[in-house]
């Protein structure tokens, strides 16, 4: 009995949180159209969220591409179809692995950093300080961070995918001996811009919105203690990751990819 009651309570909490996040998103949107534009802060956030994620994204992309190359080769060679390795690596990366893995990695690195930063500002009264100086903290702190996340995600995803192509080429062509020309041409033939590339960027964009919203919301509403900041940071990673995977399914199903 208690289990059912807890489930009901959890569901109510879930819906309540969704509602609050929607309100929060609305406040961010209103801040976007309110002058002055916080360009300096926006650029700074692109640096913190994008540039600082470059290493993990490119290394991971390379590694994943290489694994795909090796595994793909091992499977395809049984059917004598190893010349299609480029297509297999390319489509897997473009459609799924690129946006999803980039999303998850970015949530872990940049998302948690954002939550921790905003949460600490709450705990040390910096946001209150801003309010007392007649500055809206959503306008000055939250919006640049959220917008930067949305902007940065497709770029990082594309870089991940390109590194993955390279990794797959290295594993398949250089190591396993697939013909380089066949790799590239099967890749180019298999990929259709309007389905695959656009779908890939669209997914990355949606994931950027999700992580941007969740990471800033969690930081903004966290309890102003160090335990509160830590719990908010953890929940950003957990909720962000789950949201990415769930949305990935829906986009894949609806996009028809």
């Amino acid at each position, binding site marked *: 009995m208690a289990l059912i009651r807890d489930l009901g309570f959890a569901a109510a909490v879930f819906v309540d949180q969704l509602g609050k996040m929607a309100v929060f998103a609305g406040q961010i949107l209103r801040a976007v159209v309110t002058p002055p534009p916080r360009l300096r802060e926006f650029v700074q956030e692109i640096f913190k969220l994008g540039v600082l994620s470059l290493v993990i994204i490119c290394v991971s992309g390379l590694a994943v591409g290489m694994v795909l190359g090796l595994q793909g080769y091992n499977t395809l060679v049984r059917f004598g179809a190893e010349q299609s390795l480029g297509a297999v690596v390319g489509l897997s990366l473009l459609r799924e692995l690129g946006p999803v893995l980039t999303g998850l990695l970015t949530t872990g690195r940049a998302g948690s950093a954002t939550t921790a930063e905003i949460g600490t500002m709450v705990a040390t009264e910096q*946001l209150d300080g*801003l309010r*007392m100086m*007649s500055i809206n*903290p*959503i306008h000055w702190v939250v919006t640049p961070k959220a917008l930067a996340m949305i902007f940065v995600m497709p770029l990082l995803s594309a870089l991940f995918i390109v590194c993955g192509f390279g990794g797959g080429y290295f594993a398949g062509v250089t190591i396993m001996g697939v013909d380089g020309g066949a790799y590239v041409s099967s890749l180019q033939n298999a990929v259709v811009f309007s389905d695959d590339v656009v779908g890939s960027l669209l997914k990355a964009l949606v994931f950027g919105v999700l992580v941007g919203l969740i990471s800033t919301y969690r930081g903004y509403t966290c309890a102003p*203690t160090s335990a509160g900041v830590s719990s908010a940071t953890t929940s950003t990673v957990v909720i962000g990751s789950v949201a990415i995977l769930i949305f990935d399914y829906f986009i894949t199903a609806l996009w028809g990819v």
Partner: protein
Amino acid sequence: MYMAFGDREVLHGLSCDFPRGKISVILGGSGSGKTTVLRLIGGLIHPRRGEIFVAGQDVSGLWGADLDEVRHKLGMMFQGGALLDSMTVFDNLAFPLREHTRMSESEIAEEVHRQLAAVNLTNVDNLLPGQLSGGMVKRAALARAIITKPEILLCDEPFSGLDPITVKRIEALLGRINRQLDITMLVSSHHIRSTMRMADHVVLLHKEGAVTGSPSELQQSANPWVASFFNEELDESVESPDDPHPMLRQQAVP
């Protein structure tokens, strides 16, 4: 200025005035709501019932841009300083000027340095707040709070965590600012000695409201509770261990 409060969990039926141009000190035991009073005045939280008049306007129901308008008349010095830790001290002080005035960079630099000199902080321009000592943080926070020339200055525990010498320095600073700039000041504090010395008006919080009056009135009060408060507290200039930690604050108004 006239302010009157109503209910909140912490303050019950509080009603008091803070005279203009004077230094008013809010005293009380731990958890009595000293900081809450300041946060109510600043609009960071709203009372469950009642009104708060700041320079003639009721802030208890204000939000957003309207609230920001009133806040231009206020400056607040937070207990932990609340300086933006991603910016240098110079940028922290310049921030409100850059946001709300059309002053040129050179004018801003002049003003920032003048304020820093007034609080005896030199050579800190390029330091980050994390690199400052506690006393320096407080002074920088004070400078930032008054750099926009507010009418009312709210100080939340300006003496907390400081050694006695620095306490005296801050005390002198606050007094000088009040006299020279004619700013109404509301100070919440534990430090009975310092505050009684500089206060023009005292608000002593307790469960059912407050006892108000001048420092001498309260010290000579016949009320047994008031008398015991001063007798006990007079020897302590240390924070009570039961105090809510500065990190524990109620959720603020967005």
